[in-house]
Every structure is written in structure tokens, then in C-alpha cells.
């Protein structure tokens, strides 16, 4: 096991090196650059050249790449060309926002998705089932940004039930402890701050939850139908077990195995979907950082976000491989 982990960790290094090279070369192959974005309307060719000379973008690519690697090796991912802030600090500040949003969306998707899927399966072919199938199709098909604007137009602008964007009202003088706005309000007993953060969370979380919700509903429905047709359920029925016991002890428990795998897969997708949702709701998380960095051609921020994203992906894959071996002893780690 230890040898396997060490070997896999060592494989991470060349993987990330290759990725860093690809990201570095790709960014610099795009037309335009941070100078034009930073200088805006006053970006004359002379000023762009001067700017590029000062920050070393006029040097050969291998020199730039070498300097970049040297900095990254010391844990320095650079400074944002737009905000002049260290990018790691920016990512650290933005991370709780994205995690909070993703957790909220996942909770909505799971807490609504499993019961809905189960009910649809129980009422197969009846109106509720048909409505659920149509609803999930729409949920998967509607683009997140469109749904986001729609939710805001109805629930923020027309009805005024929820705030349209941001994480907290500017009038809330909240104390920052962990960066998780809802949690911070609870920890510091600033209940109004927590409630306000929660109300800001609702619309973006609903928008972000739509696709995973639809997927979970469909998987749960299919899985429950599968289990309902199985022999052991018939046996349980013939034994005279009550429907409630059959549902909870036999059907749901067995049907939830593929659903939990799906939920795991949705976590990664949620983080990806957060980019669009955050943009629409001015959320200020990792997605916002990424979207702004693309607009501003902010090389250091883009490099850091893409590389750290890749690192997380590689490490999660490693953990999944390890977990298979732990769960199923037949899987040999070699």
C-alpha cells in the first residue's frame, strides 16, 4: 500500500509538470495579453511593449517558463496582474465562497432528489412520475446562466423574496472567521449576518443544484425500479413484511448504492458549474476569479487556478483508487 501511494505521488510530479507546460504555452499563444487588459483605452503599442518588457513577457518563452517553475517550486504562484494581490491569498479568500455554494447546492440536490426519485419510481407511469421525468429533462437542458437570470428576475426583482446577488448585504457588518458566511454568523452569534448570508445563498444554490438534482432524481428512480423488480423484494413481500419495512430496509438501502456513486461524481461537476453561477450572481468565489482572470488575461491567476485544479483532480483520483482497494479487497494495488 505504502509503495503504491509513494509511486502514485511521484507520478503526480511529471503529470503536473506537463500540465504546467501546456497551460503556460496555451495562455501565451492566445492573442492579446495582460498589458492590453491592464492599460485599457490607453494601451498604445509603446506602452504595451514597455509593460511587457518590465514584467518579462518580452523574454523567450523558455526563460519565462523557467522563472515560473522556479517560483512555483518555492510555493510562489505569483501576483495577479489586475489586483496586485498574491494569487494564492486570493484563491484562499475565494475558496470558502465556492465551497459554501457547492455544499448548499449539493444539499438541495440530495435532499430533494432522492425522495423525488423514490416517489416517481413508486408511482411509475402516474402523473407524478411523468411530471418528474419532464422536470428533470428541463433541469438538465436549461443553461445555468439563463436559469440564474430567470430566478433573479422572479424571486429577487419581482417578488423581492431573496437578494439578487452577492454573498451578504453591504449593510451587514459581519465578522469574518472562517470565510463561510453562514457558519461565521452562527459561530459569532451574529444571527442577522447568518440569516442574511443564507438568504443570499438560496438563489445561486438552486440554480447550481438544478443539474445534479435532475441527475440524482433519474438515477434514484431507475435504481429503485430496478430493486423493486428484484427477487429479494418479492421474497420480503411474500414473507409478509410491512410495506414500510420493505421500503426503508430493503428497497431504499439497496437503491442508494449507485445513487451515492452519482453524488460523488456530481461534486466535481458542481465545482465546474459554479463558474457560470458565480458570474451570474456576482458570488466572489473561485468561479468569479477564473472568469475575471480570463477576461483580464491574468496569467499568474489563471496558471495558479488551472494548476491547483489539476492537482486537486489528480489527488482525488489517487484517493478514489485507494478507497477502491479498501472497500473491495479484490482490487489489488499494483
Amino acid at each position: 500500500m505504502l509503495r503504491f501511494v509513494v509511486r502514485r505521488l511521484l507520478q503526480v510530479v511529471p503529470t503536473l509538470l506537463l500540465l504546467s507546460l501546456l497551460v503556460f504555452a496555451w495562455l501565451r499563444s492566445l492573442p492579446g495579453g495582460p498589458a492590453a487588459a491592464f492599460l485599457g483605452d490607453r494601451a498604445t503599442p509603446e506602452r504595451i511593449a514597455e509593460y511587457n518588457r518590465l514584467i518579462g513577457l518580452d523574454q523567450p518563452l523558455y526563460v519565462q517558463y523557467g522563472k515560473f517553475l522556479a517560483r512555483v517550486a518555492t510555493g510562489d504562484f505569483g501576483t495577479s496582474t489586475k489586483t496586485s494581490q498574491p494569487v494564492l491569498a486570493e484563491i484562499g479568500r475565494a475558496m470558502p465562497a465556492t465551497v459554501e455554494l457547492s455544499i448548499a447546492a449539493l444539499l438541495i440536490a440530495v435532499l430533494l432528489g432522492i425522495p423525488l426519485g423514490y416517489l416517481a419510481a413508486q408511482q411509475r407511469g402516474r402523473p407524478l412520475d411523468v411530471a418528474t421525468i419532464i422536470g428533470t429533462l428541463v433541469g438538465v437542458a436549461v443553461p445555468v446562466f439563463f436559469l440564474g437570470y430567470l430566478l433573479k428576475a422572479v424571486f429577487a426583482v419581482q417578488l423581492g423574496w431573496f437578494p439578487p446577488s452577492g454573498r451578504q448585504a453591504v449593510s451587514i457588518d459581519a465578522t469574518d472567521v472562517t470565510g463561510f458566511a453562514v457558519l461565521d454568523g452562527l459561530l459569532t452569534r451574529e444571527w442577522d449576518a447568518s440569516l442574511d448570508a443564507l438568504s443570499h445563498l438560496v438563489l445561486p444554490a438552486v440554480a447550481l443544484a438544478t443539474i445534479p438534482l435532475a441527475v440524482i432524481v433519474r438515477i434514484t428512480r431507475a435504481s429503485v425500479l430496478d430493486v423493486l423488480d428484484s427477487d429479494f423484494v418479492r421474497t420480503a413481500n411474500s414473507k409478509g413484511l410491512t410495506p414500510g419495512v420493505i421500503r426503508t430496509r430493503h428497497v431504499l438501502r439497496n437503491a442508494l448504492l449507485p445513487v451515492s456513486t452519482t453524488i460523488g461524481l456530481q461534486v466535481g461537476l458542481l465545482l465546474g458549474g459554479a463558474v457560470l453561477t458565480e458570474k451570474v450572481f456576482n458570488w466572489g468565489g473561485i468561479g468569479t476569479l477564473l472568469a475575471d482572470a480570463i477576461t483580464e488575461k491574468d496569467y499568474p491567476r489563471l496558471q495558479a487556478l488551472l494548476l491547483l485544479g489539476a492537482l486537486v483532480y489528480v489527488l482525488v483520483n489517487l484517493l478514489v483508487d485507494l478507497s477502491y482497494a479498501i472497500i473491495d479487497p479484490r482490487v489489488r494495488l499494483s
Partner: protein
Amino acid sequence: MRSVRRLSAAVTAGLLAITLASCAESARDSGAAQGGGAGATGGTLVFGAPGAPDNFDPAFAQDGETFRPARQMYDTLITYKLGTSELAPALATEWTPNADFTQWTFKLREGVTFHDGTPFNAEAVCFNFDRWYNLKGAPAQTQAYYYGAVFEGFAQNETEAGLPPVYKSCAAPDPNTAVLSLNKAKGAFPAAFGLTSLSISSPTALKQYDADKVEQSGEAFTYGAYATDHPTGTGPFKFESYDRTANVITLVRNDSYWGEKAKVDKLIFKIIPDENARKQELQAGTIDGYDYPNAADWESLRTEGYNVLVRPVFNILYLGINQKNNPALKDLRVRQAIAYATDRESLVRNQLPEGAVVASQFIPDTVDGYAPDLQPLPYDPDRAKQLLAEAGQSNLTVNFYYPTEVTRPYMPNPTNIFTALAENLRAVGITVNPVPQPWNGGYLDSVQATGAQDLHLLGWTGDYNDAGNFIGTFFGTGKPEFGLTDPALFAEVGAADAVVDPAGHAAAYEQVNRDLMTKYLPAVPISSSPPALVVRDNITGLIPSPLTDERFLTVSKG
């Protein structure tokens, strides 16, 4: 057994929560009023800004989003009368040039203090001018763009753009008089003294917070603490905080302000890059106003009861012509044909916002040097065809570059503008090859650095009331953008810029404008379009400025 496990898990979770809660304490000032509602005198105004400032040191400010908070926290020696580009007293009550305009004497306002309590006086003024002049290092000099543009150079130029400095010295014969000596006269003065970048900072704060420490860090620049967290001016609002996670800048009223005090207690700029999101925030009541509403929304916003405040025009959109890239365009008749072919009246009426006007020359009528006798070239496709035939260019083909993924105040929708103009050109027999490029994805490189285009769309928003700020920028020297090689034109612009008495300066530029339209026609001026702001109906006193120099001290919330 199972219930025991559950119970112990619940107890552990509870203990963890209690431990965490005991570690975290509210940092709220229990005595302070919570923001939001009306305060003792005026409440909190929340304004939606489309972008974040680069920093808070006006010396290193280069764009409107950086200027916006700076304008509330700082004063300049001379300012602009609200809603106009006319000069008005600010920290200086009088300003007088010597006979040859190489020395400016400023009589300073008395009883003014900086936000840190230190006094404003002539020594502070000279400290600021000396600071700018003595900025060291290429990063600092590059970032001090407007000082460099106006004063041309530094004590020790460390950039390739540096020229012999215009600034010579500053003297403080008494606390209320500052005398600025220049190495040469410039027509840009005194208007340029009103530039936000020349705002006066507290010398004490500048020294205390490493204001001059601009350094290159990897592929970016970093600033000293003064620019990031301690801006200290004399303006009507004081800096309180910048929450970079929530994208919120908070300023509070300066109760020691020398002039009429600001009406609101707190001024918050909430940064919301997406225009539609800004509109929805206004409609939901979470902000009181925002900048740059989409022109297509102006009417509906008015119908909903909001006040759309349209700024006087202070920009120009032109159809650029590159004579070097396409030899056919060297012929004045061909360039005139292009001008006659463009139906600018229709373009302004159909594509541009209310308040937009057809341009008759390369500056808007709000800038001194505007020639009122010049009329826009008429739309005359027959004349255009005739001129093309005379020039032997009836089958002319042009590569027409236009930007995508951008809006500019002078160019709200580049694709629509291109489509209308291309249609006009095709109607007189010109073959148009469209070349769309993303604004920050090669467009500026192509049209300004490489000069790859025959025709292109670009424009300019003025910094201050000086025709040279427009015309000198376009046609002061040969640039790849226009492919001009005519020394007579450069000489004429240079001569106009060298006339320093205001009346003569304006008259010289009026003549330049006439000659540009009749003798040279290096491009076709299209239009000037006003950007707007929008506020709720209970917000009063916000005066739209042609220079986007809105001051929030006059704003109150009903």
C-alpha cells in the same frame, strides 16, 4: 449499542460547535450604528460600479474605476465645475501664469487638513510635485501614466517613453502660495492640473506607508501600503475599507471637509461587473444607482421610475483609415468618398443612445478648440461613387477591422456599428472584407501596433478639456494606425499645441480641425455618444459629468 454511538457522535459534534463558537467572537463595534438605514444625517448610499480599482493612489490611477473612489477622497489644485469641463477652484483659489506660461502661481485655500489631521499647505503641494518628479524605477514611472503624459518625463527617466521633463521645481514662499516652475510652456495647462492623478496626498501618509514602493513581482506590479490600504487626501469622504472578497469599497464622510460637507454618512461602491446584474440589483433595491446602464434599457428604466442621468458627450468615435496598408487610400478623393458614403445620421439615430450626435470634427463640442463653423460631411452616395470613379477606384476592396467582446462609451455596440457602415460602403461599390477581432484578443495589436487594417473602428474619451488630448493623440505623430507620413500635418498639430495662451490655443486647434476635415481627412469622425448613470428616484444631487467626474458629496438620499 447503535443509539449509544449516535449519542456520542451528537455530543462530540455539539462540543466541537461550542468550542468553535467560543473561539470566534463578533468583531462588531456594539456602539456603532449598523449601516444601511438612514444615519444621523444622511444614511448610506450604495452605488454599483462596473469594475474594481487598481489601487487607491491617484498618482498610479489610469482608468475610470480607479478614479471613481479617488475623486471622492482627494482634491486637486483646480477642479472642474460640476457637470462641465470648465475649470473651478479647489485646493487652489487662484492660479496665475507668468508671461510665457512657464510658471504657475497657486494661491491655496486656508484651513484645510488631510484626513490624517496634518495641515494642507504649500509645502504639501510641493512635496507632491517633487514626489511625482522624483519617482524612481521603471515600474513606478510606468504606473504614473498621467503625470508622465502631462509632464513628459521624470528627474531620472527609467522608461523608454521618458522625455526631458516639463517640471522644473516647486517653491513655497509662504504657507498659502505654491509656485510651480516649468522647463517649457504647455497648452495642456491649466486644464491638466484638474486631472485626478494630480490629486494632493498627505506627505505624512505618503512617507509612512511607502507610497513610492512600486515593484515588479513576477508578471505583475505591487504597490506600497499607501495605495492599497491608506489613501489620505483632503476630499469629502475618507477611506474606511476595501473588502476584496465581497468587492465592496466603503468610504465615510469627512466631517472636517473644507467645503460643503457630504450629505450621506457612508458611501459604498459595490463592484458588479455584469451590467444585467447591476440592473437587477437596482430593481431589487439592494443598490441606489449604478454606472453605464445599457442604452437599450434607458427608456424602460425611466418607465420604472428610475432617473437616467445622461452625461454631456466628451468622446469621439472615428472610422480609421490606414493609408500605408492600402495605397488606394492615400488618395484624398477616396477618403472623401468613404466619408460621403457613410450615413452617420442614420447610424446615430438607429444604433447609438439618446444624446449621441454626428461628429463634424475630431473633438466634441464640449472641448475648447471646437470649430463651430464646421458642418458634418453630408451623406451623399452619388458624390462618393463619383469621387471613387475619378480616383480610378470604383472596384475598391478594403479590410475592415472591428472589435468584438467590448463596449466603450463611444462605441456601445461595435458589431452593429460595423454592420451599418459596411452596408453604406457596399452601397457605393466598395467591397468590404470584415475582420472581427476580440478587443483584448488582438484587436488593439492589429490596428495600433501592426497597422494590418485598411479601415477600423476606434475612439477616445477625453481626460481633460484640451483639444490636444484628442487630436495630438490621434495625429500628433506618425503611427501604424493611420499610416500617415505628412510632416505638414504633424507640424500643424505641434504648432497648435505649442500655443499656450488659452484663447490662442483654442483658435489654433479650430484651424487644425478645419484643415483635418478639408485638407487631410486622415479618418472619418463618426459620432460622440454619451454614457449615462442611473439612480433611484429618492437619490438627488448626482450631477453627470462629461469627464465621468461625478462627485458624491452633493448626493442625498431621500
